[in-house]
């Protein structure tokens, strides 16, 4: 078993936990944080094939979203739409070892694929009244509440990085999934922009 201290999040070296204790959350326009070590499992298959959707549902308890750019959620598990035959199963940390074999087992006899990508990305969380103003500096998508709301996701570019953006509530709050090698850049870039809108670090 790996000791906690042996496992490092991508943004660990920015000392976010200590900074979160400095407060300022009540007055902040934007709260930034890292949600590390999330379980992210890439699944591929045919959404029109009930065998596939049933298999996913049986393992995760969640219906596969077939509407573009949407997320289905049940309990601790979300399934994010990435493309017409591609999704992410996202949940709390350290569940790959259980879910990947279960999904693979459930897909027996189908042309479907499962691969763990949890370690490839970290999640930058951004929340608050000014979150849209920060995102508008780096994302060309129209994030107006009439157009993009909670439960929607999109793969797009942010600043000069590729990201998956998922709006989780109407504060608004967003999860930004980014490849770990880019996460230093994207964090610092986002933090610099957010500083102009009243920044606090979230726990």
């Amino acid at each position, binding site marked *: 078993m790996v000791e906690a201290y042996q496992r490092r999040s991508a943004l660990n070296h920015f000392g976010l936990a200590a900074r979160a204790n400095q407060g300022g959350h009540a007055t902040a326009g934007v709260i930034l944080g890292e949600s590390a070590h999330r379980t992210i499992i890439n699944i591929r298959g045919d959404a029109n094939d009930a065998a596939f959707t049933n298999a996913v549902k049986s393992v995760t308890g969640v219906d596969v979203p077939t509407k573009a750019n949407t997320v289905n959620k049940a309990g601790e598990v979300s399934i994010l739409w990435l493309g017409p035959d591609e999704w992410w199963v996202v949940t709390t940390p350290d569940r790959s070892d259980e879910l990947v074999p279960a999904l693979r087992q459930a897909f027996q006899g189908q042309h479907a694929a499962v691969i763990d990508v949890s370690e490839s990305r970290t999640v930058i969380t951004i929340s608050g009244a000014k979150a849209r103003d920060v995102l508008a500096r780096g994302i060309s998508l129209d994030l107006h509440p009439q157009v993009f709301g909670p439960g929607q996701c*999109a793969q797009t570019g942010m600043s000069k990085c590729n990201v998956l953006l998922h709006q989780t509530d109407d504060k608004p709050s967003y999860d930004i999934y980014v490849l770990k090698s880019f996460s230093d850049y994207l964090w610092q870039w986002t933090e610099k922009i957010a500083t102009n809108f009243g920044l606090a670090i979230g726990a």
Partner: protein
Amino acid sequence: MFLITCPYCGARDEHEFGYGHEAHIVRPTPAEYEQMSDAEWAQYLFMRKNPKGVHFERWVHTKGCRRWFNVARHTVTHEILAVYEMGKPAPQIDTEKK
């Protein structure tokens, strides 16, 4: 900057996409290419249309769903006349349209 409607993700800015090349070029089978002269093979390999007008071309949604798809685009006005999935035939468009 173009606004391209990905058949899967919807309308997105051009910077999310990559341009491929002319659409509807079919790769000869080995049986076919074994019989082809170098000149015929070069037609497949190198020769591409460059019309002043409607061009059928292949794009990929690099920053989005990573799907390839076809676009009919006017090379002068940049009007996008059609977007259609890979494998679908080219739509009937007056290619003389100026």
